[in-house]
């Protein structure tokens, strides 16, 4: 696993979250959701604390974290970019939109720009198929995208 250092304060927060769920292993996924909401990601140190709190092996926590695409072990960028690769977006050219994001940001899917500003991911259907192809940056949804729009959209976030 990675070597990301997490502050003691953050780890105490993780312990608190586990206690809120009565340290119940059956609530592992809810606990992971709560921790990721709090910290933004789930590095090794956090997973070890959760395992200790719930009295289960760290390998089990790791197994669950890596099974679900919603959980991430690396920090996301300040502006997380997600390109929808659902079927409706795909047939309306989302693959080209994704290629252009990769080119403009200079990163691959799952990576974060060195300045920590943008991260790039794919997702499957935000349900805004009427606006296909769609990408989200943070909470904002961008619809009816054309590869030629991407540069301008990214520039909106350059400060």
């Amino acid at each position, binding site marked *: 696993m990675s070597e990301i250092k997490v502050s003691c304060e953050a780890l105490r927060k993780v312990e608190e979250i586990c206690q809120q769920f009565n340290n119940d292993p059956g609530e592992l996924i*809810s606990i992971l959701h709560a921790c990721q909401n709090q910290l933004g990601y789930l590095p090794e140190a956090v997973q070890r604390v959760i395992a200790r709190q719930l009295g289960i092996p760290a390998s089990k926590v790791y197994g669950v974290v890596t099974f679900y695409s919603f959980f991430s072990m690396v920090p996301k960028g300040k502006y997380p970019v997600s390109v929808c*690769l659902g079927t409706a977006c795909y*047939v309306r050219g989302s693959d080209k939109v994704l290629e252009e994001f990769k080119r403009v940001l200079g990163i691959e899917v799952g990576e974060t720009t060195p300045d920590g500003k943008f991260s790039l991911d794919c997702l499957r259907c935000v349900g*805004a198929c009427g606006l296909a192809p769609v990408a989200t940056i943070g909470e904002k949804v961008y619809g009816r995208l054309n590869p030629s729009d991407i540069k301008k959209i990214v520039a909106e976030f350059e400060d």
Partner: protein
Amino acid sequence: MKIVSAEALEALRQEAVKALSIREESNRSDSAAASGLEKGTPHMQILCCGGTGCKASESAKIVQEFHNALEAHGIADRVEVVVPGCFGFCEKGPIVKIIPDNTFYTSVRPSDVGEIVTSHIIGGEKVERLLYQDPGTGAHISDSKHMNFYRKQMRVALRNCGFINPEDIREYIARDGYKALADSLKRDSLAVLADIKASGLRGRGGAGFPTGVKWEIARKFDAPDKYVVCNADEGDPGAFMDRSIMEGDPNSVIEAMMICGYCINAHHGLIYIRAEYPLAVERLKIAIAQAREYGLLGENILGSGFDFDIQIRYGAGAFVCGEETALIHSMEGKRGEPTLKPPFPAEAGYFGRPTNVNNVETLANVPVILTKGPQWFASIGTEKSKGTKVFALAGKINNVGLIEVPMGTTLREIIYDIGGGVKNGKKFKAVQTGGPSGGCLTEKHLDIPIDYESLAAAGSMMGSGGMIVMDEDDCMVSVAKFFLEFTVGESCGKCTPCRIGNKRMLEILDRITEGRGKEEDIEKLETLAKVIKDTALCGLGQTSPNPVLSTLANFREEYEEHVRDHVCRAHKCKALLTYSIDPVLCKGCSACARGCPAEAIVGEVRKPFVINPEKCIRCGMCLSRCKFGAINVI
């Protein structure tokens, strides 16, 4: 305020009906006249779509602008702004509907709000430019009832979506909400179950198992703790009906889960929902809190002695968790891996307790079956598939949106009458139903009446109801590859056929689309597909080769062209394309060269440019920039 009896519920309903009557009448009325405060209309309502699709196009801002404008004109006490769930016509969103004249405004922008308020709400003059324009006749249509998109629809599961405020339980109650529950609690639970069986309702999540039979099996297993689970893990990319129901009518799901609990003798409800649906989660939470406040969830419901409560569990992005056993493991805090059945969840499910799992759309049908009667429901649809089905119509089609039609409607009616035909006048090529487990159907299947059996016989499946239309520009080999990439990414890895078999199939498809296909590859694909179908552990694995098998059955010649001639007729497979510039048509404007990200185009201004094939990355940028049609692609 606790409702303690069926009579108290009825009294509340009669009270609530009044507030909703202006909308009900508006829906029934057929008058084309516009209403307005200056024309003497005492009260008006503005319905602004609050579904995810419209929210993505700033509908929240539109709602705010309406509030501001009404305040500014001092008419906020006479005009109410309501935010219902999805209207379904996502193509033309955001949708704004004016009551009582039932005017349906499309593609509304925040900047249009001022005009709607001054000319329509106050002046009584409709804003013509925001009305839907029929693409055939060019006429403006003001009432959605008269649009082709809605005319052939029959909204049963979506009956309240786009009509009631989903965050107000009284509006649900006004539309006979919780009446089915109240009536059921007075009856013998076996009789209620018999009604569900008699209605012929089948699971809307994909497999189409009879709901009544499922409940009957779950009822047989006796245990102190039994569970009713709502499967709201809508993982099929391109399907969003469950989300729309939860966003637009969350109480219908809650009521149905309680009725199920009563029938199978369970007192715990769990909703397993995707964390990617924040709005649906929010609306469900509000609905559950309100139901508890009104005493509709909790102990001794409506004085009947029946107890039931519901909790929400979150998914975390795994397609396989739509499978019952995987879903249950995920709710237990484990990896969402499926297990062999039997034992079925009805016998040993959530933490080993008897568990009944139903999909959102299935549940949304339950209350209305009981209020209108099983015979009414059974009179809709085909012999073996009763009722209606919601489809998420998307892809290369004019009217993208969420539609609900009686079973037995043909694909042609859906695509051409409701969907308005293929986008940009292109030629229809295929329609994909059933998501990653389904298949592609062609022109020759357009007239089959849709139901579970006929779709399966045609080599596809109902699935959860995704329906993606493709045109001549779509390469069917790439489409099959797209779905297989999805399945490979989502395979849980537990069984070998799915984990390794699909990966090998994807490698073959990669080869074919990159022009390295071998003669024997097509046959290999077929063999692998059949083995996976026969041997994979769960529904995800067993159906994963369907997109490949159905495209092979219907578009075999495209596969052969890729392999034998290295040609992709849809010009999708990059590796098989060559870009060149026609020296006669090229004016030497340099637009292509300036746009080329690979700097592969060189030339002198006002002389023909040339593409260096070594450098060309086949991105198509030059094609989109050339105004003279000088770029050739073969």
